[in-house]
């Protein structure tokens, strides 16, 4: 890509600043985008990536700085104006109308008319061409988008961005909601776009992924560009260092802890949405990591265990007593606590206060003579806000106003508050910044040290390998392996998750403390 960088940039952004109230979101950022390159924009949550891309697409007007496209000044009046200049944006959440067809979605807002009527033939031709461009001509035009897979939906979303002849495509966390196989497909599309001369700005938390797909990168920190360069040859550690100013090893701290007797014994458990029965045991003070692809049955097992899905067979014994009843209410009574993978949709009631969210699963301590005392409730919540260093204006603030990392801490604090003994954690670090992640690892280690038992579901292998005592792998609905962490490495985990069996990794000596 060395040749690419010497070419005149298709987009040049320099000295762009933007403040919201007292917060300086962007502080003189800039970068060059070359024709036909994939440029990764990397940074923690709050580093300014989203604001920068909103400035680029025209959704936000900068306070100062300048942008040029093909050497001509570019100052979009709005997203539509940005689109007219060839800048298209694909957002994190899919924004398709589920009941409308592929064709209708792609052409939405750009309908072609002839003599006052929709020119279906012309539109179909355009959609066809665009689907060819993204190498997915097999997608049918007349299918309602709601019936497509998530991956296919994303292809439609990309097609929609491209149908207006975009030359610069901005993708914001495009794989965050995708199963692994669909991510592969996305990478192929991105490579194909490159060949057609489209430049892609690619924002992602997944550094390994960025390494595979990007030609160059720019790292943002606190609203500034702190580093930039070609991806080939760049070391992951160096990029992380740029992002947070710390080393990777410190980011997944391991807390030493002792493993006690069995607390959870699951035998042949089968939930209504589980493909096959699952058995596992979990001891006090143990962290059992659960690996597997998205959709492999990990979440379904947790939900059946917690009574959110109906249980159709098998037993689960907690602290020597078999689980009876089938509601989360009875499970909480028996010491189980579940952290949902869907923080915003299920984990938290976003417009309720931090105090309400934190204490909802156990309000009993705040009752006096049958009446709930909000003041006591707020005080109880304030304790946990302090203990977990949750950044909030106070217990009465709506939880939706907090950053992703702090929201997740509220959801975790709820489990502590309800005095859970067995923690079922479903992707606890998904979509949160590196520093909050690090705090959560430390906190999970602390739990084990206190003798709590933790089931830790994750798709991020370094964290699984970093903090688990044992790791079990889900493959197509079945739990294939549970081995001590020392017998796993990233390659064998991936193999177990994708093919269902794995060569045993050469046993490594137990890691040293710290």
């Amino acid at each position, binding site marked *: 890509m060395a040749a690419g960088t010497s070419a005149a940039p298709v987009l040049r952004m320099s000295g762009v600043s933007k403040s919201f109230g007292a917060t300086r979101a962007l502080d003189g950022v800039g970068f060059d985008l070359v024709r036909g390159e994939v440029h990764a924009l990397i940074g923690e949550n709050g580093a300014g990536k989203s604001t920068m891309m909103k400035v680029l697409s025209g959704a936000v007007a900068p306070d100062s700085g300048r942008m040029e496209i093909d050497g001509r000044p570019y100052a979009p009046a709005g997203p539509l104006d940005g689109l007219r200049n060839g800048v298209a944006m694909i957002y994190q959440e899919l924004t398709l109308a589920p009941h409308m067809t592929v064709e209708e979605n792609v052409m939405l807002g750009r309908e072609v008319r002839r003599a006052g009527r929709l020119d279906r033939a012309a539109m179909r031709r355009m959609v066809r061409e665009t689907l060819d461009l993204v190498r997915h001509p097999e997608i049918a035009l007349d299918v309602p988008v709601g019936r497509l897979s998530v991956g296919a939906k994303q292809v439609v979303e990309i097609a929609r961005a491209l149908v207006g002849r975009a030359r610069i495509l901005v993708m914001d966390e495009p794989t965050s909601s995708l199963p692994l196989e669909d991510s592969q497909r996305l990478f192929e599309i991105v490579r194909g776009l490159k060949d057609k001369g489209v430049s892609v700005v690619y924002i992602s938390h997944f550094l390994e992924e960025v390494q595979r797909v990007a030609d160059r990168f720019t790292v943002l920190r606190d609203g500034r560009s702190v580093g930039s360069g070609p991806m080939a040859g760049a070391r992951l550690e160096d990029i992380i260092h740029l992002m947070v100013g710390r080393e990777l090893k410190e980011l997944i701290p391991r807390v030493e802890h002792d493993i006690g007797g069995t607390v959870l014994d699951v035998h042949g458990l089968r939930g209504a949405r589980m493909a096959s029965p699952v058995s596992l045991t979990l001891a006090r003070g143990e962290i059992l990591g659960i690996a597997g692809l998205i959709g492999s049955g990990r979440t379904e097992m947790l939900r059946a265990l917690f009574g959110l899905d109906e249980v159709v067979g098998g037993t689960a014994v907690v602290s020597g007593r078999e689980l009876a009843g089938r509601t989360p209410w009875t499970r909480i009574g028996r010491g189980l606590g579940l952290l949902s993978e869907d923080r915003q949709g299920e984990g938290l009631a976003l417009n*309720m206060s931090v105090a309400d969210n934190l204490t909802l699963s156990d309000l009993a301590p705040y009752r006096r003579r049958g009446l*709930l005392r909000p003041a006591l409730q707020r005080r109880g919540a304030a304790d946990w806000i302090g203990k977990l260093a949750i950044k909030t204006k106070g217990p009465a603030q709506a939880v939706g106003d907090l950053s992703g990392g702090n929201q997740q801490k509220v959801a975790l604090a709820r489990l502590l508050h309800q005095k859970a003994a067995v923690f079922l954690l479903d992707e606890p670090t998904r979509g949160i910044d590196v520093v909050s992640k690090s705090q959560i690892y430390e906190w999970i280690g602390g739990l084990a040290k206190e003798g709590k038992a933790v089931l830790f579901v994750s798709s991020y292998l370094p964290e699984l390998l970093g903090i688990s005592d044992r790791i079990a792998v889900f493959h197509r609905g079945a739990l294939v392996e549970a081995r001590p962490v020392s017998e796993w490495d990233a390659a064998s985990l991936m193999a177990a998750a994708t093919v269902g069996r794995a060569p045993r990794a050469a046993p490594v000596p137990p890691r040293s403390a710290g």
Partner: protein
Amino acid sequence: MSLQRRTGLVKALNLFGPFIGLLLVIALFSLVPEVQGRFLRFANFKSVATQSVIVALGALGMTLIIISGGIDLSAASNIALSSVIAAYAVNAGLAPPVAVALGVLTGGLVGLANGALVTRLRLVPFIVTLGMMGIARGAAKWIAGNQKIDAPMTWINELMAKTPHPPWLLLAPGVWIVIVLAVVLAVLLRSSVFGRHVFAVGSNEATARLCGVRTDRVKVLVYALAGLFCGLSGVMEFSRLTVGDPTVAVGLELDIIAAVVIGGGSLSGGEGSILGTMVGVLIMSFLRNGCTMMGWPNYIQEIIIGAIIVVAVALDRLRHKGQ
């Protein structure tokens, strides 16, 4: 800084919005010379309060339902059915307390049926209560033989008397009942575990379930409780009319919903307050009262109230933006 001031303003709007609306309405009519004299009198306030009782009782229950994320289109039909049952009971020679109890219980049963259908069949409340709206109205007409049920005068009819029987009561007994129940319900919502659970279900049902809230039980209770309020409202309707009329209160459910919404209730759930709802009820009653005094025809009132609903919801939107 300006952002902070703005959220301050939004907060104030949030707290006092409905009150400001009420004061504005009262001030408006107080400034018009033609009606000033009659409008600003205790006797008039008293009659406005009495006229508010039926909608107020329905709106108390509706507040619960709307906070929980539901809706009840059958409220008005339920009121009519309950009033017919109460009249039927009095007419059949049952003691007045028994008749009152039967009326209230009828409402409760209809509510219970709503709740059971919503939770068991997993149907959306809009559909369930739309169906119940027809069922309850039809049942009322059937029981009443498609005409009014005459009933002998009893103390029930004094519940809605503009001049209460022991004059030291100052307001009709029905008004006092509304005030007491409103206070009880406000306490229940604000400071009981059940109240928190109602808000949680409306705010995010999945979260509530995850936190061990028995969401189905909460919903059934909410609809049943709201049904009891409709039943009581029906008894008041019977008290006011002195007959059981199955065709009464047609379309009243929309007034009831409007009162909750004007008072800050959000149709997407998780928001609303008893105080707000009561102010919403009064805003509509004072408007009707003032318009009647001005000699404005009915249709003008309808247009004004319609506009107020839209303005109230628009303000609600603004509030959400600020948050």
